[in-house]
């Protein structure tokens, strides 16, 4: 290596005495090269094959004093014997450049950790005479690196530990990263599309907050219904925030979702409760009004000496009392969870019991009521007979009133059927009427809200009660309405093993 040959850096005698004066051949490291090395902000030394310092630059001398002639290990690592892990051999013995990191414990040097580069120096035609050891202080970088690693660990802990689902997505809605909670509930998701993982869809959602954050670089919010990998639905509030590069360009979007299933359930329950209270109050108002009217008619009949009128008034009062009783019973039925008192009953006998109860009412209303069921005796079913009786009675009563409300209907007809549904392993009680049907707007709210099409005569609780009873049995209420020409309701009850003797009551 011939530093002296560099034309722009001729040696200056005063500052850089000839190499011969300091015991190294000028041809190995001339004055110009040494002047240049003196300017470097790192420790530079020339080490002999015996590991002695032949020359040191100013940065090293400033901190370690005059080191020429001293062993390398003493200066750099405050050792009395050669370092067992000495790496200078690569340069001094093998003639190759080597690079390594070196800690400097106990030395006088301010640097505690250095990046070392050792370059073999040799004169033309001669062997390796020395190695140039250049040690760059890595302490500030190491401190920053430690800080960075700490921050990364903290961010990672935060990312993994927050009690919400976090994913980072690219423009194609591919999940680049997801936190632990996300992967626990939605499975391995890296590389998969958000809409596949969250919703089992094949195409992106119509309104996507991730897409909007990509578009405008803003935070967006939405409420979504998604499915866990187990299939269980959950409601989420979703926030999306852009992740930008140093130029401010969004290259990914972070999606943070919090489960609000319970909150939404509570919200719906409260809304439903509010509505129930309002409708109940309205029903009570109607009942009171009917009672007031009935009382007035009784009084007027007595005053006029008209017993027929008084009797009419009395019937009105009786109807009002009956309605109040039914209202209270329905409210009690829907207001608390009940465990069905299962008994083994004959489905045909249960249906026949309900139908016989309504025979008089059907005759009064001029509606034909019939029971159609298989001739052979069906297997008993395990149900709470009182509850199913109530549910079926609600449907029959609704059917009769629906038929009776139709003006000019030739023959109002309500048919009750008991059907075995072997494919579904269920039994169904079916009530079919040829009444006016239910308009689509009401159909949507039928089982969710208190809906009455009977004006002041209905509380709107009947179907809510019916649906609750079937839900408690693990069954459901099916409904079909063929464009204003009657309705078909089915109480579908799963068949489960019957325990004990068949209930004859």
């Amino acid at each position, binding site marked *: 290596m011939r530093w002296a040959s560099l034309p722009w850096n001729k040696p200056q005698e005063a500052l850089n005495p000839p190499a011969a004066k300091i015991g190294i051949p000028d041809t190995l490291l001339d004055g110009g090269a040494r002047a240049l090395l003196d300017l470097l902000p790192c420790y530079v030394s020339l080490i002999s094959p015996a590991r002695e310092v032949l020359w040191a630059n100013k940065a090293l001398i400033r901190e370690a004093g005059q080191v020429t002639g001293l062993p390398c290990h003493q200066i750099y690592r405050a050792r009395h014997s050669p370092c067992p892990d000495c790496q200078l051999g690569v340069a001094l013995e093998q003639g190759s450049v080597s690079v390594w990191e070196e800690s400097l414990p106990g030395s006088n040097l301010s640097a505690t950790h250095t990046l070392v580069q050792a370059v073999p120096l040799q004169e033309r035609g001669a062997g390796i005479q020395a190695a140039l050891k250049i040690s760059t202080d890595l302490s500030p970088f190491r401190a920053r690196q430690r800080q960075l690693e700490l921050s990364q660990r903290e961010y990672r802990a935060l990312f993994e530990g927050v009690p919400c689902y976090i994913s980072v997505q690219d423009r194609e809605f591919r999940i680049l990263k997801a936190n632990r909670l996300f992967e626990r509930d939605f499975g391995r998701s890296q590389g998969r599309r958000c809409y596949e993982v969250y919703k089992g869809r094949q195409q992106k959602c119509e309104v996507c907050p991730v897409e909007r954050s990509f578009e405008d670089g803003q935070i967006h919010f939405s409420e979504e219904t998604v499915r866990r990998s187990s299939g269980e639905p959950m409601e989420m509030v979703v926030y999306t925030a852009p992740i930008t590069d140093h130029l401010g360009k969004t290259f990914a979007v972070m999606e943070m979702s919090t489960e609000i299933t319970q909150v939404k359930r509570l919200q719906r329950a409260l809304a439903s409760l509010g509505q129930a209270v309002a409708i109940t109050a309205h029903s009570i108002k109607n009942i009171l009004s*009917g009672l007031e*009217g009935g009382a007035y008619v009784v009084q007027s009949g007595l005053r006029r000496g008209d017993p027929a009128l008084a009797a009419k008034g009395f019937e009105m009062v009786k109807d009002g009392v009956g309605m109040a009783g039914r209202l209270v019973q329905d409210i009690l039925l829907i207001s608390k969870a009940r465990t069905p008192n299962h008994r083994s009953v004959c489905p045909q006998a249960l249906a026949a019991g309900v139908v016989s109860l309504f025979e008089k009412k059907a005759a009064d209303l001029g509606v034909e009521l019939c029971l159609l069921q298989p001739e052979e005796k069906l297997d008993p079913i395990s149900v709470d007979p009182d509850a199913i009786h109530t549910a079926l009675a609600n449907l029959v009563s609704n059917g009769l009133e629906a038929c009776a409300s139709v003006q000019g209907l030739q023959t109002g007809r309500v048919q009750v059927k008991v059907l075995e549904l072997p494919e579904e392993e269920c039994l169904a009680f079916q009530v079919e009427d040829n009444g006016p049907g239910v308009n689509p707007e009401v159909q949507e709210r039928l089982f969710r809200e208190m809906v009455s099409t009977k*004006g002041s005569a209905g509380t709107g609780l009947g179907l809510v009660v019916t649906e609750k009873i079937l839900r408690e049995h693990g069954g459901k209420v099916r409904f079909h309405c063929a464009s204003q020409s009657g309705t078909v309701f089915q109480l579908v009850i799963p068949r489960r093993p019957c325990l004990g003797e068949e209930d004859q009551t």
Partner: protein
Amino acid sequence: MKNSRNVLIIDDEPAMTTYLSTLLEDNGFVAHVANDPTEGMERLRQMRPDVILLDLLMPHKSGVQIFQKIARDERYKGIPVIILTGIKEHFVENFREFFTTLKLDRPFAYLEKPVDPKHLLRVVEESISPHCSVSNDMFGQTVPYSKTP
């Protein structure tokens, strides 16, 4: 019936018609009951009542349709109609412009069920008063009502 004040009640609820007819009869009116819209129109062809009490929510033909029919028929011109219903908010929201758009006379009054008997009697009295009658209409405005001579 000379000097009798005839009220036609069109309502599908028997309890309501019994109550209203008893109340009106006790207060010097002659009550005629129709239990459905068709019967109501039939009654109108047979007699000219001094006032009609019309229920809004009835099966098949709503009270609004019946009102429209009555208001458009020259034969029934000038018979005040008092609407009875339990769906005040819904009615007001949906029918605010209904009468204006169809260029129909507005109902004489609107009464919310359950009706207050004293208020009902006062409104019925006002509707058939030979003098210039004044009543609150359903939209909360006070409007003069003039009977056809």
